[in-house]
C-alpha cells in the first residue's frame, strides 16, 4: 500500500467525522509520511508500520465520539459512541437488544407515571375548585343524543319476599341504598325509572301535556287513579320530555328539566348548588342528593354525598402513585445512565488496551 491509498482509505473510514477533524488527521499522516520518507524509508514500509488505515479510522472515530460524549453527556453522543465502539467489534451487540427493550419499557412507564400524576393533579384541582366554587360539576355524565325512551316501571318486590308487603320491600331496598328514592337507571339509550311504592312521577312533554303516575302495591297507575293500557310500565320518547318530577313517599323531590338555552336534558347533572336544569331538592338542608354510579354502572338517586370525595381520593391516589413511580423511575434512569457510562468507559478502556497490545 502506498501513501495515497493509505490516506484514501483513512479518509473514507473517517467520513462521518466533522470536515476539519478529517483534514487535520489526514495532514498529520501526510506529515508523518513526509518525515519517514526523508528518513529513507519506502511508502509501503511506512504504511505497513502504521497498520490498517480502516481500523485506525474506526479507532480515531471512537476516540472523537467518546471525547464529544465526555464533553456533552447526551443520548445522541452516547449512541454515536456506542455505534463507533460496535464498529470496532468489541461490543457484543446481542447485549444491546435486551438493553434497548429495557429502555423502551422504562420510557413507557415514565410516560404512564407522568400521565397518572397529571390526571391525579387535575382531579384534585377539580375537586378543590368544585368545593370552593361549585364548578365544575363532578356528577355530570353526558348521555349524548336525545333518543331512546324513558321507561317507567313499578318496583317489584322479590317473589320469595312474599311475606313482606311491597312497601316493606321497597323500604328495605331503600335502606340498602342509603335513603335512595326511586331509582333512575341508564341503559343506553333508555332511561329506566323504577318507582317505589308511594312514589310519584310527573312527566311534562315539551308541548305541555302532563302525565302523572304513581306506584301502588307494585303496580303502576295514573296518579288520579285511572288505569294505564299496560299496567306495568309507561314509556315516553326522551326527546318529547320537557320536564320530569319524582316525588317520593318521604317527600324528596327530584326534578329534571330541559335546559331552555341548550335544549338538552342534563339527566344526571345533579349539581343542586348552581345548575338549574336539573334540580334535586333534598328533604333536609344538610343532605346532598346526587346520582351515583353503582358497581353495575347504573345511576341511582341517592341522598349521600360521596362522589366528590371519591374524586379527591382517586385523584390523590393517582397523584401520589404517579409521583412515587416517577421518582422511582428517575432513580432507575440514574442507575441505568451511570451503568451505561461505566460500561462505555470500560469498553473504551478495553479498546485502548487492545491497541497498545
Amino acid at each position, binding site marked *: 500500500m502506498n501513501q495515497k491509498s493509505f490516506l484514501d482509505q483513512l479518509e473514507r473510514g473517517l467520513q462521518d467525522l466533522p470536515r476539519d477533524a478529517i483534514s487535520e488527521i489526514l495532514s498529520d499522516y501526510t*506529515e508523518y509520511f513526509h518525515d519517514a520518507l526523508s*528518513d529513507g524509508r519506502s511508502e509501503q514500509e511506512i504504511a505497513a508500520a502504521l*497498520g490498517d488505515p480502516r481500523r*485506525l479510522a474506526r479507532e480515531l472515530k471512537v*476516540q472523537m465520539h467518546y471525547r464529544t460524549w465526555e464533553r456533552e453527556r447526551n443520548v445522541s453522543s452516547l449512541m454515536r459512541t456506542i455505534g463507533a465502539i460496535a464498529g470496532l467489534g468489541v461490543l457484543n451487540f446481542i447485549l444491546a437488544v435486551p438493553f434497548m427493550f429495557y429502555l423502551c419499557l422504562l420510557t413507557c412507564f415514565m410516560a404512564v407515571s407522568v400521565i397518572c400524576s397529571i390526571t391525579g393533579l387535575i382531579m384534585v384541582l377539580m375537586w378543590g375548585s368544585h368545593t370552593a366554587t361549585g364548578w365544575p360539576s363532578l356528577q355530570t355524565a353526558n348521555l349524548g343524543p336525545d333518543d331512546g325512551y324513558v321507561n317507567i316501571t313499578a318496583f317489584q318486590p322479590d317473589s320469595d319476599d312474599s311475606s313482606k308487603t311491597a312497601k316493606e320491600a321497597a323500604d328495605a331496598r331503600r335502606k340498602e341504598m342509603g335513603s335512595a328514592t326511586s331509582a333512575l337507571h341508564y341503559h343506553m339509550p333508555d332511561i329506566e325509572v323504577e318507582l317505589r311504592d308511594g312514589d310519584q312521577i310527573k312527566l311534562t312533554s315539551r308541548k305541555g301535556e302532563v302525565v302523572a303516575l304513581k306506584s301502588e302495591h307494585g303496580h303502576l297507575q295514573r296518579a288520579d287513579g285511572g288505569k294505564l293500557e299496560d299496567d306495568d310500565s309507561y314509556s315516553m320518547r326522551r326527546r318529547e320530555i320537557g320536564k320530569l318530577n319524582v316525588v317520593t313517599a318521604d317527600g324528596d323531590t327530584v326534578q329534571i328539566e330541559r335546559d331552555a338555552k341548550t335544549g338538552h336534558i342534563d339527566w344526571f347533572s345533579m349539581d343542586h348548588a348552581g345548575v338549574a336544569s336539573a334540580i334535586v331538592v333534598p328533604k333536609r338542608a344538610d343532605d346532598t342528593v346526587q346520582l351515583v354510579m353503582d358497581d353495575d354502572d347504573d345511576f341511582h338517586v341517592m341522598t349521600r354525598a360521596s362522589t366528590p370525595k371519591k374524586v379527591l381520593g382517586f385523584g390523590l391516589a393517582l397523584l401520589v402513585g404517579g409521583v412515587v413511580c416517577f421518582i422511582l423511575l428517575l432513580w432507575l434512569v440514574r442507575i441505568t445512565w451511570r451503568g451505561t457510562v461505566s460500561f462505555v468507559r470500560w469498553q473504551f478502556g478495553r479498546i485502548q488496551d487492545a491497541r*497498545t497490545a
Partner: protein
Amino acid sequence: MKIQLKKGTLDMCVLALLARKDSYSYEIASNLAQGMDVSEGTIYPLMRRLQNESWVSTYLVESSSGPARKYYRLTPEGQRELASMRQEWREFVTEVESVLNAQTTGSATGLDEEVQK
C-alpha cells in the same frame, strides 16, 4: 506480562520525552522505537489521547521542505501528571523488587531450615 506493563508506561514515556523537548510525531515514534518494542501505528492515536487529556498541546511550525509540522508540547497539567506517574512508577518498582528480594531470602531461609533439620 510485558504487554500489561507496557500499556501503563507508554504514556509516561511519551510525556518524559516531551518533558525534555517539544517534538513531532515521527521524532517521538523513532525515539520510542529505539528504546522500546513499540508499534509505530500506536503513536498517533496515543498522541491524540494525550491531547484529549490536556496533557499535551500542539503548535504548527512551517517547514521549507514539506508540509507544516505539528509539534507537541507538555502542558503544566501534563508535567504534574508525569511527576505523579514517575512517583507511582518508582513506588511500584520498589514494591516489586522488595517482593522479589524477599522471596529469594525467604526460600533461602526455608532451605537453611531444611538443612538444619
